[in-house]
């Protein structure tokens, strides 16, 4: 067993344990933390496959930004675990069907060698930057799907703002923009007071 295989099994073991703990941990904050660990380990496995751009991107985007906000929300929520567990048996059949579907899909992907689908050769020659080739492909061959995806994200962003926008505030509030541009002479008047003599 060479070193790479050892690292792979080490990372996979962490990944599997962390993913299991995501769905079994009782405390939602712990579950979110295990999800972060799972993402991080996943990045490690991807960099073993020489996909360093994807590996860093998952850490940058999911661990560094998405999960921070997620954790932020989970910490603020007052989650009653017993109420969540009430509907468990009602949701079980639907959940089981979805789970089976995912297992089937993963089996098809992982068993592609068995089903005679030619697997991609991942061995890259040295000197080719992963990031550069992904960028070149994204802005040449796949430019329309890429632009479409970004428009979908933009629509999602605007939709989130529209859904949470409650109209102009009725209360008085301070405008920081006006505050930081205020000059001393707008607020304070310095008077010359001659000394009074009698």
């Amino acid at each position, binding site marked *: 067993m060479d070193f790479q295989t050892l690292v792979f099994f080490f990372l996979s073991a962490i990944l599997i344990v962390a993913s299991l703990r995501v769905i079994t941990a009782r405390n939602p*904050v712990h579950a979110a*933390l295990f999800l*972060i660990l799972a993402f991080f380990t996943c990045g490690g496995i991807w960099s073993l496959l020489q996909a*360093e*751009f994807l590996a*860093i*991107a998952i*850490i*940058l985007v999911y*661990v*560094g*930004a998405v999960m*921070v*906000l997620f*954790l*932020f929300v989970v*910490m603020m929520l007052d989650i009653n675990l017993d109420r969540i567990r009430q509907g468990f048996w009602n949701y079980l059949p639907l959940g089981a069907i979805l789970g089976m579907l995912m297992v089937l899909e993963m089996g098809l992907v992982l068993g592609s060698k068995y089903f005679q689908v030619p697997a991609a050769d991942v061995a890259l020659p040295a000197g080719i*930057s*992963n*990031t550069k080739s992904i960028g070149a492909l994204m802005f040449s061959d796949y430019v329309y799907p890429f632009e479409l995806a970004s428009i979908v994200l933009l629509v999602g962003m605007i939709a989130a703002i529209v859904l949470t926008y409650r109209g102009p505030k009725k209360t008085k509030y*301070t405008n*920081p*923009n006006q*505050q*930081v541009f205020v000059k001393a002479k707008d607020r304070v008047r310095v008077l010359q007071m001659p000394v009074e003599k009698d």
Partner: protein
Amino acid sequence: MDAVMNFGQGIFGGIWPGVWTLIKIVLIVAPLMLGVAYLTYFERKVIGFMQVRIGPNRVGPLGLIQPIADGLKLLLKEVIVPTGANKGIFVIAPMLALAPALAAWAVVPFTDSLVLANIDASLLYIMAITSMGVYGVILSGWSSNSKYAFLGAMRSAAQMVSYEISMGFSLICVLMVSNSLNLVDIVNAQHQGRLAGIGLGFLSWNWLPLLPMFMVYLISGVAETNRAPFDVAEGESEIVAGFFVEYSGMAFAVFFLAEYANMILVSALTSILFLGGWLSPVGFLPDGIFWLLAKMSAILFLFLWFRATFPRYRYDQLMRLGWKVFVPVCLVWLVVVGCWMMSPLNIWK
């Protein structure tokens, strides 16, 4: 050098590359920790000077032993874990704060060849690793089970996520003009053009053509490290000490180390990305690591100067600066740089 390699090969055999990497890590981390210790001393002296005080002057000549005395004192103090705290997370939170600050140094180049890991995507790696630093803050705030700590953590999380965006945009401009994600290449790319040719290297560095991005990066760097005037996460006059109010002894010291290690990291990155790293400012002086150290010291001095000069930003003003000033400035300059590179006036060929 060859003698050392042969000697190590003889003693450790097959595991020598691993041992050699460990030695290199120690060679980076040990001076870094010493730098952190003396940065605290320097800070107290500089702020003392600016406030017409003397600063530490009792322990050792000129107070030079003061940081070591402080470290020893913190080591000997008890680490108190609050009763209502989530113990496991309470203990790992300081480590989560310090680890990214140290791990990012793996790809920071000190000279052309003096770098631990010269990887292709080193700029991305730095962005990814430094974005992990926020977890130490959030988790310490949450696990302490204290209202002040939680408020500090919430403020800090929102602040760091907001300023990461403008920081990322300014880095995108840098990688556009240097056409590389590798930090060594980014520094070398700053040493070309007509001005570098006639010996005025400092005018060809990125700070001049990317001046708005340089300002945005520097200010966002101050915000990312939670330093004054952006220290609302600590805000000692508002929320006692913010996220680490429940920490004592060495656990507190680890947060302290992380903050100062991050300051040194941001100053190193600013020097590498915008101020030409180890390149000499003028043609007749040789390049070398001392230039990098000098630039880092200058930026660290700026950090301390800011702290002594500016009052703390109010929270909504800080958010306004991040979202309504920096993000639009970055977006505009991104387009400007893109058009500039496509025009005949392109200076980065």
